[in-house]
């Protein structure tokens, strides 16, 4: 069950795993995620399904080593099996032809962005991607993103690659150059918060895909709740994507840090 077919190391602490999971591969839609749990003591961790192949019955996930449990997943090798894998969870991305979309992704947030870019491109959108990271080594999936983007801007905090600056700098550059119909942002909560502030200023509709703490991932625990326009929403069943301008990111950041 859930055997790892292929492992690829994307950066120092990010790995890509192709997993045999035929039922999930068949049912999965763009933007949905799975919950992964290793061993008896493992945490239940939500991870976006980056790609799926119905014919080979596989799904692809990308994991960043950020703690004990994700370290365990990163350490898995080809041939290993994942004890518990459940999904696909969450609502699918609304795929439509919006016109020009700017996709602002940071760090490992690039991974969940990839399937959205692919699907949005396929229905005729013009895709401009801002690929941001702290430093050059943390830029992932550049080749794949390039393939499905009309234009790509890379920014690094330290200037080691692309433009020196933040994802918001790249995004604002694009906004000033051409008319943007939609912005999609995925990355650390603080990054999404500032992208959202920026696009609000320019009145550009913006979608953020949230990565809150979850346990069951099926709407049972409420750990993932966020305030969206003052209303409680569960990221696992009502999301993960929300209108970024309505999300209370400050509250979300507090809750993300609750167990740190």
């Amino acid at each position, binding site marked *: 069950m859930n055997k790892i077919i292929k492992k690829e190391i994307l950066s120092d602490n990010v790995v890509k795993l192709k997993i045999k999971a035929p*039922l*999930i591969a068949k*049912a999965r839609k763009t933007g949905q995620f799975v919950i992964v*749990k290793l061993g*008896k*003591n*493992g*945490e*239940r961790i939500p991870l976006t399904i980056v790609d799926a192949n119905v014919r080979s019955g596989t799904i692809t996930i990308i994991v960043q080593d950020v703690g*004990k*449990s994700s370290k*365990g997943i990163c350490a898995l090798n080809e041939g290993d099996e994942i*004890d*518990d*894998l*459940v*999904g*696909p*969870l969450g609502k699918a991305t609304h795929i439509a032809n919006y016109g020009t979309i700017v996709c602002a992704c940071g760090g490992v947030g690039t991974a969940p962005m990839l399937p959205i870019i692919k699907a949005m491109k396929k229905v005729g959108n013009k895709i401009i991607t801002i690929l941001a990271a702290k430093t050059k080594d943390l830029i992932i999936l550049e080749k794949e993103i390039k393939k499905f983007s009309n234009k790509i801007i890379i920014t690094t905090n330290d200037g080691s690659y692309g433009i020196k600056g933040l994802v918001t700098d790249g995004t604002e550059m694009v906004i000033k150059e051409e008319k943007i119909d939609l912005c999609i942002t995925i990355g650390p909560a603080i990054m999404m918060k500032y992208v959202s502030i920026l696009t609000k200023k320019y009145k550009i509709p913006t979608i953020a895909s949230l990565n809150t703490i979850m*346990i*069951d991932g*099926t*709407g*049972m*625990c*409420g*750990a993932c*709740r*966020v*305030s969206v326009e003052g209303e*409680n929403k*569960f990221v696992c*069943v009502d999301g993960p994507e929300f209108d970024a301008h309505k999300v*209370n990111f400050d*509250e979300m950041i*507090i*809750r993300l*840090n*609750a*167990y740190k």
Partner: protein
Amino acid sequence: MIKKKYLKFQQDESWRDDLRKSMKNQDRIRIPRVKMKELDPNYRVHNHSEVNLGLTLEQALLESKRCLDCNNPQCITGCPIKINIPKFIKNIERNNILEAAKILKQTSALPAVCGRVCPQEKQCESKCIHLKIKNDPVAIGYLERFAADFERENNSISIPKINKNKKIKIAVIGSGPAGLSFAGNMAKLGYKITVFEALHEIGGVLKYGIPEFRLPNYVIDAEIDVLKKNGIKFIKNIIIGKTVSYQDLHNEGYKGIFVAVGAGAPNFMNIPGENLAGILSSNEYLTRVNLMGASKKGSDTPVFLVKKVAVIGGGNTAIDSVRTARRLGAEKAMIIYRRSKEEMPARTEEIRHAEAEKIIFMNLYTPIKYIGDEKGQVKQVCLQKMKLGDLDSSGRRRAIPVPNLTKILDVDMIIVAVGVSPNPMIINSFKGLDISKSGTILVNQNTLQTNLLNIYAGGDIIRGGSTVILAMGDGFKAADSMHKILNQN
């Protein structure tokens, strides 16, 4: 359902007759109701060991003598699944405990569970003939637990006989008490049962909700094991409607579906500050501790281990949460409930246990606001003083605020246990299913059929938040009616 005539016939069996004659009723009445031993409160608040220790054989034999084996046993009518109570108790009296356990299992898929968590004082025991003479009722629940524990502890677990003739495939969605009860009864009738569970453990609320100190996991697992031996197939990590669609089940030849997914979604009060760090639903807290083992060494799932914990609510889940917090080191573990103690929906026994464990009860208060520190962690709760008013629709006295009377309480963590609502995720996956205003699945109350062909539903998904035994009763009823209807065609 057990027919009256059949009951009478069984009561007339010679061994029952002999037992009745062996002791005069007036002597039986004089025996005081048994008291179950429990762990010392000062000891048990430092561990998760089961609080109630069960009866000894001597205690059980004596208690069984208290049952008069009366002509018109009302206890059975008080049981949602109609267990043949006098028959199992009289088997205990004649020291045939394994037979008693078998009788329980003819009806109940989970006797060791029910013996622990059923509110017997409101069900079977509330109908006991002893009450008519102002005597304590027979401790039916204790005896049920005793018989089920006895066969497990003596490695003599019997597997109920099943009818192997039928090959019809039936799907059960959810492995909580409703699903397990349904599966067990359908297996006995000879159906091929597959139970689909979304989580990584079988048992539903019995596993993630009810704590170890009230219902140890090994007790649940032993009963699930019996179901497995009855040929029931359990598949974990599958969400019907997500991983597999209803249409997929249909295409795979399932002729009936029982939806027993529970209520699931935790309610919040939507008051200021409720999304501060350190405020969680009872579902989250109990799932972390019970299902994920967060307080155990080696577990990757974290849980707050803090000193001042307030639980909002007055039901069994609230009591389970506050007693769990106490065991995880809370020095001040508090219940905040808007009505008085008498109106609390929790079982009397649970409240008594909580009191012994020095849980602080703050009755007639309700939170109106939470206050956080500079990091966004909850540090205080603002409480509104309440008083009791007129009766409401539930027959309890309404709680109404006392104007201008509030107080601030220091807390490190808040657990919100104010009920659950049906989980829309599951319902949305069955297109065309009739749903009530409150989000529960609408069923025919007699058959538990939904408006969709061959789909039945039971447990919290039709009731909102309810009890284990009512869920099991639904499983029993749905199995009965699905069997009848499948055989008409």
